[in-house]
């Protein structure tokens, strides 16, 4: 019998010596250049970090490649970030430039620190999920090819976090990103009554619908959907395989802007709907890459230094956001789903 409940590998065994020695005793850091951080300990020890973008969906051979690099330059240690980036940790300064040269030669993408776009957090899409309204990896690849200069350079006034989720389940919780790309369905589920009868627990399916659009159909021992109430979330399909919502014509992309996580200067913010629908146009989704670039560059050219997307929009006003970006305003952008919890505090930044 296999042992169970032994927990993850102990991080202490994974840390490079320079981190063990300076653990909790880092004094300050500098942003050396795009993609490179320097951390200095109380001891005077130096640690250089070189950040590399990854496609997130990687083969074991890719992992072996990066292990080879870490063995050559970093004593066999490396780490990943919360945004799917890879980081090489260099404690000997003379190895820094050779490492960077090697990475560039091999075609790795060095960048993503400071005032640049970091790797977009993203999800599975058509590669491995049952509810997607679009692909994830493909759009991220297309958007990052297009915006590559913003990953490798510091050309923006502040951080800009781009994220993608392929349906409104939002694995990866994209709802607080500077720019969020979200797959959406636009048609109510089609009901396969045989599957509903044989595989689904009808009360649970009814309860799962956020808008109360599903009602029992006792005659058919199945369900009906009131189409006008359905906002195509696919919750019913997660509960019941007889109610698919995906549809090549109905499915596509929405764009949300102005979200923020950190409490620096202003509290965290939700991203707000800016573009309600763009078509799925694989393999390069030109409508999406154009829209993202337009929003990013409009912000970058108008915002003050250190001003995130949402801070800039709050200062200039949403009406100005729409006039500057040229994005048409439509009725879908006006909220009609209520959540009244906004008087609770969502920031740890408050006074004692």
């Amino acid at each position: 019998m296999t042992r169970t409940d032994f927990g993850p590998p102990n991080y202490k065994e994974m840390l490079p010596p320079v981190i063990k020695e300076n653990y909790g005793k880092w004094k300050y850091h500098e942003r050396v250049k795009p993609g490179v951080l320097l951390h200095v300990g109380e001891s005077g020890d130096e640690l250089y970090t070189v950040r590399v973008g990854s496609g997130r969906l990687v083969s074991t051979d890719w992992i072996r490649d990066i292990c080879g690099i870490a063995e050559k330059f970093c004593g066999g240690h490396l780490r990943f970030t919360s945004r799917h980036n890879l980081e090489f940790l260099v404690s000997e300064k003379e190895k820094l430039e050779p490492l960077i040269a090697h990475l560039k030669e091999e075609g790795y993408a060095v960048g993503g620190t400071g005032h640049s776009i970091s790797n977009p957090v993203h999800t599975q899409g058509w590669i491995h999920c049952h509810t997607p309204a679009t692909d994830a990896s493909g759009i991220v690849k297309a958007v990052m090819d297009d915006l590559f200069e913003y990953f490798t350079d510091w050309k923006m006034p502040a951080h800009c976090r781009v994220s993608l989720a392929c349906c409104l389940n939002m694995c990866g919780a994209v709802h607080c990103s500077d720019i969020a790309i979200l797959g959406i369905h636009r048609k109510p589920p089609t009901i396969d009554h045989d599957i509903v009868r044989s595989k689904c627990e009808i009360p649970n399916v009814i309860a799962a619908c956020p808008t109360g659009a599903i009602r029992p159909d006792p005659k058919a021992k199945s369900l009906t959907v009131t189409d006008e109430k359905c906002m195509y979330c696919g919750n019913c399909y997660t509960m019941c395989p007889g109610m698919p919502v995906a549809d090549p014509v109905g499915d596509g992309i929405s764009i949300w802007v102005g979200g923020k996580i950190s409490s620096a200067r202003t509290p965290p913010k939700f991203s707000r709907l800016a573009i309600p629908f763009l078509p799925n146009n694989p393999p390069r989704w030109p409508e999406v890459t154009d829209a993202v670039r337009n929003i990013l560059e409009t912000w970058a050219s108008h915002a003050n230094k250190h001003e995130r997307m949402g801070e800039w929009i709050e200062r200039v006003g949403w009406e100005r956001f729409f006039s500057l970006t040229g994005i048409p305003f439509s009725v879908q952008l006006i909220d009609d789903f209520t959540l009244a919890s906004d008087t609770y505090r969502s920031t740890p930044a408050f006074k004692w």
Partner: protein
Amino acid sequence: MTEDSKTPLLDQLEEGPWPSFVTEMKRAGEKNEMAKDLLHQLEKSYKNKIGYWKHGGIVGVRGYGGGVIGRYTELPEEFPAIAEFHTFRVNHPSGWFYTTDKLRQLCDVWDKHGSGLTNMHGATGDIILLGAPTDALQPCFDDLAEIDFDLGGSGSDMRTPSCCVGPGRCEFACVDTLDLLHDITNEFQDELHRPMFPYKSKIKISGCANDCVASVARSDFSVIGTWRDEIRMDPDEVANYADGNMDIQAEVVDLCPTGCIKWEAETKTLTIDNGECNRCMHCINLMPKALRPGKDQGATILVGGKAPIVHGALMAWVIVPFMKMEPPYDDFKDFIRTAWEWWDENGKMRERIGELINRLGMRAFLKAMDLPPVPQMISAPRANPYYFWDPEEVK
């Protein structure tokens, strides 16, 4: 039969400077039929603009209720190698630090049993091993256990918690995020591996208010490091920043949200009225050599964050303004257990704890947690007169 299939659409995603997942799928496909069929099914999705994965059939490994996600293609005749293509969620080490030995062992196990494709990492933090047939699950887990990799969470359990790099490499960390994460992950192994809650429950830990793991948006229990005393300052380094190319008045003072910093350019003196500071991190972010968090460190605990399903997205709310965070972290563990108990007792199926607080009211939650109401919990008091009294209070 897939030999002569072509992937003209996906091939276009091998061009361009950003790393290509298509190239990775092809590399894995050279050695592995599953990866090859996956590539061809994806090409079909690109052509027809729809996915081909099915929701159905419970799979797993002995002793665990979660950690493996079942997946079956809708097109098993066309793509037989991925007829069963299940995912492992493997619990990552704190801070995503690895030795290359460890990663190489993991690659060997995955090449032996699965598709050779992975996500480093999933959005929750796990290592995602993407695609193995049902028969391979138990042997694969046995081999993973052999090299000390355990599974993460899925379904209605505690999901794999995650944390920022913290004291490993960040001078801002007010909590030992890596240690706290490792400790609670081990403490809550049962909750991680055996789904028994109304729905999923997530814990994420950030060392400061920059919140680099986005805990406030993505976790039911968000731990964010902070301090209670005064920002530490090195006046010489402040002067150095001023002599460099930083406009301290414009970039720091004018952007301080509480207006509690003053800068005298002639004398190069910076003063902070710490009593009025809300510890937002902005000034420290800009001048890490000169300013540091205070020494009386701990964490703010926020509860209720989640993505939209079912009743809309929520950001977590301040519940405990300050808690000391030192091993063995008993106060924190008690807090989590009490909150889980209340949620387990009162939550409906698929109701996250934030939604339950919304439904039953903050007052019910505070009562269950035996916590006093304080103004740090709200951004404003109520604006409506519909409030309630306990008969006990009316005497």
